[in-house]
């Protein structure tokens, strides 16, 4: 059945259309939505897209980084200022998918996808959401928890603080195929250290629940500890108790629980 495509020149128009029509879905890069179209998903009859230049705009120079939700993985890889996020953007698809896949779209990617969202969660990102009534902000963590049942709003941008020490931001994705594959486990961690001890760590896990999650037990176990084999042992042990890992064609829940601590230890100790 042919779909109706509505192209708006502004984000607020797009948000109003989405709110008014329950069977409308928003198209950013298309890597999720066009796949659904190709697979014959009939749960929507209208596609809304926008040509608003703000959607693809990046402000990456300062301490507070702001990315329009339509910024692509390729745009991030082309930005020298966002070098600390290059391993994350490179974890998404192959080059042809990265030209299309967006920051905003990644927040809606179902398990086992959503590597960029996992990194944004570790960076404590905040979202700008537009609805027919205006614009508001929301923490990414809150958004992800209510992703499936949340109100119909359009994510227009994400923002987060640049890590003051770029080596404090760590990212690792474990896959069964290389160099590209879907996640068995993805871990993003912000582990700032003062005097050799971790302080205020933020750790996020991908593919360990229906959506990316904060790993609070890991964070607590890292507090005040040095990044040594002994220092991270409690965090590694705590990793197996995080989340509710799904079983899929890539790995069983049992395997994910076994392996997440190994990946975490390698990430924190900088092991290959």
């Amino acid at each position: 059945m042919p779909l109706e495509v509505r192209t708006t020149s502004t984000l607020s128009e797009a948000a109003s259309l989405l709110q008014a029509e329950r069977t409308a879905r928003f198209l950013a890069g298309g890597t999720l939505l066009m796949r659904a179209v190709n697979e014959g998903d009939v749960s929507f009859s209208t596609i809304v897209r926008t040509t608003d230049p703000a959607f693809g705009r990046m402000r990456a120079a300062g301490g507070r980084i702001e990315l329009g939700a339509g910024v692509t993985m390729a745009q991030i890889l082309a930005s020298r200022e966002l070098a600390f996020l290059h391993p994350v953007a490179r974890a998404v698809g192959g080059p042809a998918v990265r030209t299309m896949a967006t920051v905003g779209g990644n927040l809606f990617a179902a398990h086992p996808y959503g590597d960029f969202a996992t990194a944004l969660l570790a960076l404590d990102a905040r979202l700008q959401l537009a609805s027919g009534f205006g614009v508001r902000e929301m923490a990414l963590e809150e958004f992800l928890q209510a992703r499936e049942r949340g109100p119909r709003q359009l994510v227009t941008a994400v923002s987060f603080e640049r890590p003051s020490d770029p080596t404090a931001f760590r990212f690792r994705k474990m896959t069964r195929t290389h160099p590209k594959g879907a996640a068995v486990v993805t871990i993003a961690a912000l582990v700032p250290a003062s005097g050799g001890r971790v302080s205020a760590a933020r750790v996020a896990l991908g593919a360990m629940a229906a959506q990316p999650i904060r790993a609070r037990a890991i964070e607590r176990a890292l507090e005040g500890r040095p990044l040594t084999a002994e220092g991270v042992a409690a965090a590694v042990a705590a990793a197996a108790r995080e989340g509710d890992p799904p079983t899929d064609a890539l790995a069983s829940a049992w395997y994910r629980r076994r392996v997440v601590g190994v990946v975490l230890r390698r990430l924190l100790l900088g092991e290959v």
Partner: protein
Amino acid sequence: MTRAIRLELNGTEVAAVAEGGENLLSLLRGRLGDTSPKAGCLQGTCGACTVLVDGEPVVACLMLAEAVDGRRVTTVRGLADGPRLHPLQEAFMDGFAAQCGFCTPGMLMAAKALLDREPQPTREQVIEAIAGNVCRCTGYTPIVDAILEAARRMAGRRGRVEG
């Protein structure tokens, strides 16, 4: 609902009518008669439909057809210069870099995107550039070799022109 669009396909202005929700691959193969991009998975996973839009690689199966209105699309059909094959095509032929050949159009376009940006790539860069292209005959080694060989030949030709 349909939409009339215009695009530049392999250097020629063409007009087409896109069905609502139609993807670029369907537009190219079904309406514009360019069957050089292949329909593999229709999920963006196999890369057989890789084409260039404004010089950047995309998986045509996931691109909304009407989003290419006013843009420049290059498929493998636009790679050769008349009867003269592109150095990538020659190197693929000489190095037996195709077995069944189904992935070849996508491999060639992914490689073209790489060499346009990085004329002297490392082996790792080549592997990364075709990371989204699946060869189920698993003939990756000759493919990577052929891309590196094409880069060498193109550098040689540029050297001769400049010298």
